[in-house]
């Protein structure tokens, strides 16, 4: 028996205020003696308790009333702590459940945050609809946390729920705090499913503050709309479960979830009945009913709540061991599952349930709790048997025509791995199809029917490819929504008034791009609020609206996506940037300042360690931000540009590819091998003339292009290929750029330009410097995609490529 259990016994014994010490006390003392003192040392006051207990045991004299009560309080305190400590260890976290929970909770937190921020923005805390929405999400969260179990999170959600009910105004900040806390916790859980919950004392304090205020105000508002007025259905007739308009869209989810829970419960009960007497099965059933009750309560589906509650109460008795779980009970529970299924069916509008039946059930269940099932068991069999056969059959004509049928929109979750495989296969199909189309033998067939069929196949293939690609696309909505919160927080910290406008949040991008875009966006928005937008006083002095406007928009432009961040702040100061650049020697030697274009000056803010902020704040200004932004965006094969006008504001443009999976590439040949060079890295290609080439000390070679002297890189040597042109005048030179470095690559010839799907060379292949991956070309063969920055690095290090 664990210490906690014994402790519980001892403390309940204390509470009962007995005269004589009992066995439980002596057992407890014995356990404690065996326990390592170090394990108990953190339990303040335990020494004293032990001392008093021992004395009592030995002398048989009950301690004085004052000491006794004092002791009792202390015991309660220690018990609470012990419980807190032990809960995570005692209750095994269900990893499957946790996985499901973690994968879903981010989006629900997102949703909650959106709602809360909207409430905050509107300034209309009386907006019942949204408050209920927020409450619903927190409630669901609480339920889920309880099931997993994550007790700390569950408690906090519970507190938050109470707080929303009690508080006069919607408590925006504490709820945002809760969201943050939950996010942190979720992050921890992702790393380690047994991670302890982060510190929540601050959060609790803020909750309690609000709760107190609410209580002081004296009027506790009625909780959920609908739940309070438990209207007892009129006797006789069939039950009608009306769903409030507001919750209509939540109902389908409820129905499918409930049916899922019930199916799980049923399976567990059957297993239990078949001899696997694991109490966990009963627990699972309990949780199923409990979850259904919770959600139904929120949706105001009173009969379901009642029913689920009664069943749950009975299950709880069984679970605690107060009732012996015989197969009679199992039968009852199974029938309860069926009944609840039908009740849920009533909501959907395709089942009926009579009031009498519901009453009968409620009666039956409450009797069972009192342990009278044995006598009632005969009745159960009859009682359940009589109404059941008649009830489930749909009474024809009886169903009222006004009843709304709720459509259940089905969706399934698919792992990204399977999705990628599908996309791979479709890509392959497209290649195979084009190979057939280009086959000379096929092309010699000239019947009309064949041509038509072939055309049909191409069309379907194209559609299929499009559909497959669209599977990976997600909207920017979630990412943009995060920025709303960010702007609010940063503006608050920097004492600025900022209004964020969002456009084009429905623009779709490849999932991977969307994931990667978050960080750079955060940096840029932070910068815009902290440095770009002035304080209200400055703005008024400049004759502007004291509230600054930040516009975040996304749109398509020529096959890529542009994300624009525009502020109406002070704009970039060209002189300041130039001065800073000179101070830091960032300017390339020989640059004439007067010749620099605005664009070039603005781009200097992307140089590493460059910051024009006069002081470093805790928000930004250390000069790492913009450098990281550019690196991140370039890693996504995107580009970033700045436009600014002093006093009027700054605009950042991020141009991103729609997807990371496809790039525009130039296919080149060296010997027999073909390589793909990303078009983005290519500046120009040209035929070398003798005056271009200059060798240096007979080892290095340089090429003079557009007034610049660039190194000549022979891919043939770099890759140690056997074939390929030696003479630069026979091949082609390609001027490439990456990381602000340029060079010329010598290739045999350019075969063409095309879009290729980037594939990894497989997990079984070590990374090769200078190669980012492979692409399958139109003939089904593999060509390697070159990593220009890797090649430039290898070449400038003046050593052969690092091989595997």
């Amino acid at each position, binding site marked *: 028996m664990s210490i906690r259990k014994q402790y519980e016994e001892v403390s309940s014994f204390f509470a009962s205020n007995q005269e004589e010490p009992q066995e439980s006390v002596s057992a407890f003392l014995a356990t404690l003696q065996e326990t390592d003192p170090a394990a108990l040392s953190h339990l303040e006051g335990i020494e004293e308790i032990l001392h008093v207990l021992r004395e009592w045991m030995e002398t048989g004299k009950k301690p004085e009333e004052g000491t006794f009560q004092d002791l009792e309080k202390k015991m309660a305190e220690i018990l609470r702590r012990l419980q807190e400590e032990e809960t995570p260890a005692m209750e095994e976290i269900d990893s499957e459940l946790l996985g499901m929970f973690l994968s879903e909770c981010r989006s629900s937190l997102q949703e909650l945050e959106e709602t809360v921020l909207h409430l905050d923005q509107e300034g209309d805390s009386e907006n019942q609809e949204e408050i209920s929405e927020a409450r619903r999400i927190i409630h669901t969260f609480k339920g889920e946390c309880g099931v997993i179990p994550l007790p700390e999170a569950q408690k906090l959600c519970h507190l938050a729920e109470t707080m929303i009910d009690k508080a006069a105004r919607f408590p925006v900040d504490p709820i945002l705090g809760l969201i943050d806390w939950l996010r942190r916790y979720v992050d921890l859980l992702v790393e380690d499913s047994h991670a302890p919950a982060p510190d929540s004392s601050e959060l609790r304090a803020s909750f309690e503050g609000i709760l107190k205020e609410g209580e002081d105000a004296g009027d506790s508002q009625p909780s959920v709309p609908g739940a309070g007025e438990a209207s007892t259905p009129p006797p006789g007739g069939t039950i009608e479960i009306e769903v409030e308009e507001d919750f209509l869209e939540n109902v389908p989810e409820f129905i499918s979830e409930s049916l899922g829970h019930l199916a799980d419960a049923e399976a567990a009960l059957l297993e239990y009945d078949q001899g696997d007497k694991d109490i966990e099965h009963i627990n699972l059933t309990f949780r199923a009913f409990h979850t259904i009750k919770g959600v139904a309560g929120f949706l105001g589906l009173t009969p379901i709540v009642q029913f689920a509650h009664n069943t749950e109460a009975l299950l709880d008795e069984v679970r605690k061991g107060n009732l012996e779980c015989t197969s009679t009970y199992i039968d009852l529970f199974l029938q309860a599952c069926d009944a609840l299924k039908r009740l849920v069916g009533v909501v959907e509008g395709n089942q009926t349930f009579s009031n009498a039946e519901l009453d009968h059930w409620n009666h039956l269940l409450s009797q069972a709790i009192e342990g009278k099932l044995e006598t009632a068991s005969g009745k159960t069999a009859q009682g359940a048997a009589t109404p059941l056969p008649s009830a489930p059959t749909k009474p024809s004509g009886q169903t009222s025509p006004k009843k709304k049928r709720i459509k259940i929109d089905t969706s399934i979750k698919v792992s990204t791995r399977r999705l990628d495989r599908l996309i791979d296969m479709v890509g392959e199909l497209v290649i195979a199809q084009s190979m057939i189309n280009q086959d000379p033998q096929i092309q010699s067939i000239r019947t009309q029917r064949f041509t038509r069929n072939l055309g049909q196949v191409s069309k379907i293939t194209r559609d299929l490819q499009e559909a497959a690609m669209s599977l990976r696309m997600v909207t920017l909505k979630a990412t943009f929504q995060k920025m709303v919160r960010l702007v609010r927080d940063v503006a608050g910290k920097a004492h600025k008034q900022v209004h964020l406008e969002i456009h084009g949040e429905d623009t779709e991008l490849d999932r991977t791009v969307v994931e990667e875009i978050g960080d750079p966006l955060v940096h840029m928005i932070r910068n815009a609020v902290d440095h770009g937008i002035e304080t209200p006083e400055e703005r008024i002095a400049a004759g502007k609206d004291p509230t600054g406007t930040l516009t975040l928009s996304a749109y398509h432009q020529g096959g890529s996506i542009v994300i624009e961040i525009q502020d109406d702040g002070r704009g970039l100061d060209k002189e300041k940037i130039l001065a800073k650049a000179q101070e830091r020697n960032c300017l390339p030697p020989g640059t004439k300042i007067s010749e620099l274009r605005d664009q070039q000056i603005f781009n200097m803010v992307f140089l590493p360690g460059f910051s024009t902020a006069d002081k470093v704040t805790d928000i930004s200004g250390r000069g790492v931000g913009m450098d990281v932004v550019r690196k991140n965006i370039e890693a996504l094969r995107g580009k970033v540009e700045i436009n600014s006008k002093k006093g009027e504001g700054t605009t950042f443009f991020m141009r991103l590819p729609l997807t990371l999976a496809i790039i525009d590439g130039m296919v080149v040949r060296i010997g027999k091998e073909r390589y793909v060079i990303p078009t983005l890295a290519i500046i120009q290609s040209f035929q070398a003339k003798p005056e271009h080439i200059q060798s240096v000390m007979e080892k290095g070679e340089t090429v003079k292009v557009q007034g610049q002297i660039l190194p000549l890189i022979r891919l043939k040597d770099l*890759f*140690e290929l056997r074939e390929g042109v030696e003479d630069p005048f026979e091949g082609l030179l390609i001027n490439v750029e990456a990381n602000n470095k340029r060079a010329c690559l010598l290739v045999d010839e350019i075969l063409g330009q095309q879009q290729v799907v980037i*594939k990894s060379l*497989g*997990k*079984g292949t*070590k990374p*090769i410097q200078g190669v980012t991956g492979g692409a399958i070309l139109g003939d089904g063969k593999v060509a390697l995609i070159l990593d220009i920055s890797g090649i430039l690095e290898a070449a400038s290090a003046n050593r052969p490529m690092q*091989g*595997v």
Partner: protein
Amino acid sequence: MSQTMETTEQIQIQKYLSFFIQDEEYGIEILKVREIIGVTDMTALPKTPPYVKGVINLRGRIIPVIDLKRKFDMGDTEIKEESCIIVTEIQVLEDGDPLQMGCLIDRVSEVTNIEDSKIEPAPKFGGGLDTSFILGLGKTKDRVCILLDIDRVFQESELTEIHSAAENHGEA
């Protein structure tokens, strides 16, 4: 199921795919074999060991191919009519994609049943002959088949990152 673990009277029989490299017969557990394909064009990978023949496109997936003959220091495989690539597959991580690798060989022979009791450990030859890839020598009615530990070949092909991670990333 291709797997046969006939437990009648506790005789363990495994199925092996046997193939030839020159005149020697080798075997790979059939469970590790994904498919056998004809030799297709291979794209060379720069700066890889000579036994790495390159990469091929296996229905949209790019996988490396190694020349087993070269790997065993028996010279280069000459590609002939009967040459083929055995695509092997091992599960590295429980939830990850399986790792696939092609093995270029001279000729596929057959699928044979070999009792576990008929497998003898590889003898120590000494003299620099590395037998670490050899699971054992399987005896069938009339001949002896060299059973390969394909996981080992995978790991020591110096292609895999698993290997480099295991070896404390000795080289950069």
